[in-house]
């Protein structure tokens, strides 16, 4: 029976991330692999031990390292030059927990939790949870990210009463050159015996936990997580083209999602998820695509649908990248036509699926542009109108998607308002679109519209901007970083051009 282990892929040199927005020239590429049996705690102990040796070897040779999950982030946050890359997608086992693994077995329901290797992809978590008759509350639109990578950047969906995906996390194992840390909130979750069995030192600390929820790849290497889940449910999707007016935007700003759904969705139901894809080129003169998900109790007897029949693949990026890149001058008409073609007849019939069945793995076939900003939902009308004017007016050629979520959790969560709107610009990459987006951000600054940017997407984040956005939360996050990586040599190990620019590792 093979234990968890490291493999040198023996393929140094050029490596591109998933969306082909960045290239690493790696000195060496390694992969962390799961064992083929054994209990979860043994797997974690073996992996952490191997990884710690590897980190210390890199430290001795002064070589920076970078863990890479799904390599999904287009912001190049996973890129390292002249360093060692660590691929984690084959460190991907999931484990049930037992009552005895918890600090308070008498009051804990072990079936509510799942223990995961950090390289498990979201798709796999969805499958395993369905097997356990459980579900996640929210995820991003696509499901190819690893759980550690998705949490590290605060990946979000559009469930109106949920935060980012990291809201499921209850405990985190992080490996550094100096230790293997099991980080939990102060109240504690797992038993000291279980934590010791994973080869970790227990760290129950509110700040450490809040920092580790969104680690941005700069606190060490995340190797495992315990997630809390909810009983399995079904969602009924509803998606169609609508005539989108300013008064509808006002409804969304006011959080009147039920009223918005009564107008455009299934009457009589409270929406669980609301998303609107708009055309920034005269948005109220063009139609928009609206997608609702309505939550329903689970039953075994529902008729299974394909992801496409459930409206999966709604991230807009895949459907518009290629054509818009070639014909940016006709962006208004093209966006509208593609929306019509992409949505087809929409999803208006009564079909159901689990949460996992509504997400999909996409394959980019052209270099894409993807950016996301977060803002205060209570200023949505002003923010959206400024965005459309500034972005499309400068030639930006992407769709603009509105998603709604709650703020946090995590010190570095970019969703910083209790009611946050995430505004995504997804489409083809071009110099014009990039310049238009940067120009738009400048206009936001000038107009004093509050916003933050997604860690994993395009933007103009600088150390000063990060400091301004996160203030004291950044100070607390850095204090935790100094505890986990106490020496300059430790911190240097996780440096990269991108993270230095953000002021997280410099």
């Amino acid at each position: 029976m093979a234990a968890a282990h490291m493999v040198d892929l023996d393929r140094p040199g050029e490596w591109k991330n998933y969306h082909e927005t960045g290239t690493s020239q790696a000195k060496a590429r390694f992969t962390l692999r799961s064992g083929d049996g054994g209990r979860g705690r043994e797997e974690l102990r073996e992996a952490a031990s191997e990884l710690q040796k590897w980190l210390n070897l890199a430290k001795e040779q002064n070589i920076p390292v970078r863990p890479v999950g799904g390599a999904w982030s287009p912001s190049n946050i996973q890129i390292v030059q002249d360093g060692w890359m660590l691929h984690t997608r084959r460190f991907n086992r999931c484990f049930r927990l037992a009552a005895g693994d918890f600090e308070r077995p008498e009051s804990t329901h072990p079936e509510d939790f799942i223990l995961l290797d950090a390289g498990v992809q979201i798709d796999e978590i969805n499958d395993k949870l369905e097997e356990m008759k459980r579900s996640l509350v929210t995820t991003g639109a696509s499901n190819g990210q690893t759980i550690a990578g998705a949490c590290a950047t605060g990946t979000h969906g559009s469930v109106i009463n949920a935060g980012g995906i990291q809201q499921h996390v209850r405990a985190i194992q992080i490996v550094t050159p100096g230790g293997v840390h099991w980080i939990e909130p102060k109240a504690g979750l797992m038993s000291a015996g279980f934590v010791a069995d994973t080869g970790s030192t227990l760290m129950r600390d509110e700040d450490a936990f809040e920092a580790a929820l969104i680690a941005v790849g700069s606190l060490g290497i995340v190797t495992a997580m315990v997630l809390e889940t909810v009983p399995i449910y079904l969602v009924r999707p509803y998606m169609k083209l609508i005539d989108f007016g300013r008064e509808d935007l006002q409804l969304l700003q006011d959080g009147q999602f039920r009223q918005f759904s009564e107008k455009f969705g299934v009457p009589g139901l409270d929406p669980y998820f609301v998303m609107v894809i708009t055309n920034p080129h005269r948005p109220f003169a063009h139609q928009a695509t609206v997608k609702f998900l309505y939550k329903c109790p689970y039953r075994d007897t529902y008729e299974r649908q394909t992801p496409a029949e459930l409206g999966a693949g709604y991230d807009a990026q895949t459907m518009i990248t290629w054509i818009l890149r070639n014909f940016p001058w006709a962006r208004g008409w093209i966006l509208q036509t593609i929306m019509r073609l992409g949505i087809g007849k929409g999803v208006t019939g009564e079909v159901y699926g689990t949460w996992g069945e509504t997400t999909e793995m996409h394959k980019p076939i052209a270099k894409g542009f993807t950016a996301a900003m977060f803002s205060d939902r209570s200023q949505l009308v002003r923010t959206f109108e400024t965005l459309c004017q500034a972005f499309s007016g400068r030639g930006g050629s992407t769709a603009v998607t509105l998603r709604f979520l709650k703020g946090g959790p995590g010190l570095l969560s970019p969703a910083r308002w209790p009611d946050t709107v995430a505004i995504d610009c997804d489409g083809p990459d071009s110099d014009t679109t990039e310049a238009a987006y940067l120009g738009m951000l400048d206009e936001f600054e000038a107009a004093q519209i509050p916003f933050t940017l997604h860690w994993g997407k395009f933007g103009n984040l600088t150390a000063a901007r990060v400091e301004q956005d996160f203030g004291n939360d950044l100070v607390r996050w850095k204090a935790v970083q100094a505890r986990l990586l106490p020496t300059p040599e430790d911190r240097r190990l996780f440096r990269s051009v991108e993270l230095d620019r953000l002021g997280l590792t410099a």
Partner: protein
Amino acid sequence: MDTIGWIAAAILVLTLFGQYLAGTADYFLSIENPRPLDETVDTITILGWGFASQASRSCMAELVGQGFADVRLFATRKQVLLSFVTFGFVRKVCIAWRGNAGQHPLGEA
């Protein structure tokens, strides 16, 4: 006769143009729940209308025991033009594949 000739020539040109565009199409095949590793792209050259071919036989350590998640087959515009210019004698295509990260049964912690 001239008119028929022009029509035939136009059909031929349109056929070639259509073939040129179709030649760059992207064929994509995936297993269910692909869970892919990184993509690798290789170019395969077919010579002499298929009488001779050259294929890469690279060794992929990360794929051992796991198999493919998905495969793409496509040609770039340049590759299709090369095929046209050489009357199909040189035909290059790109094959892109991603390994499967592996699917383990739910274990006990």
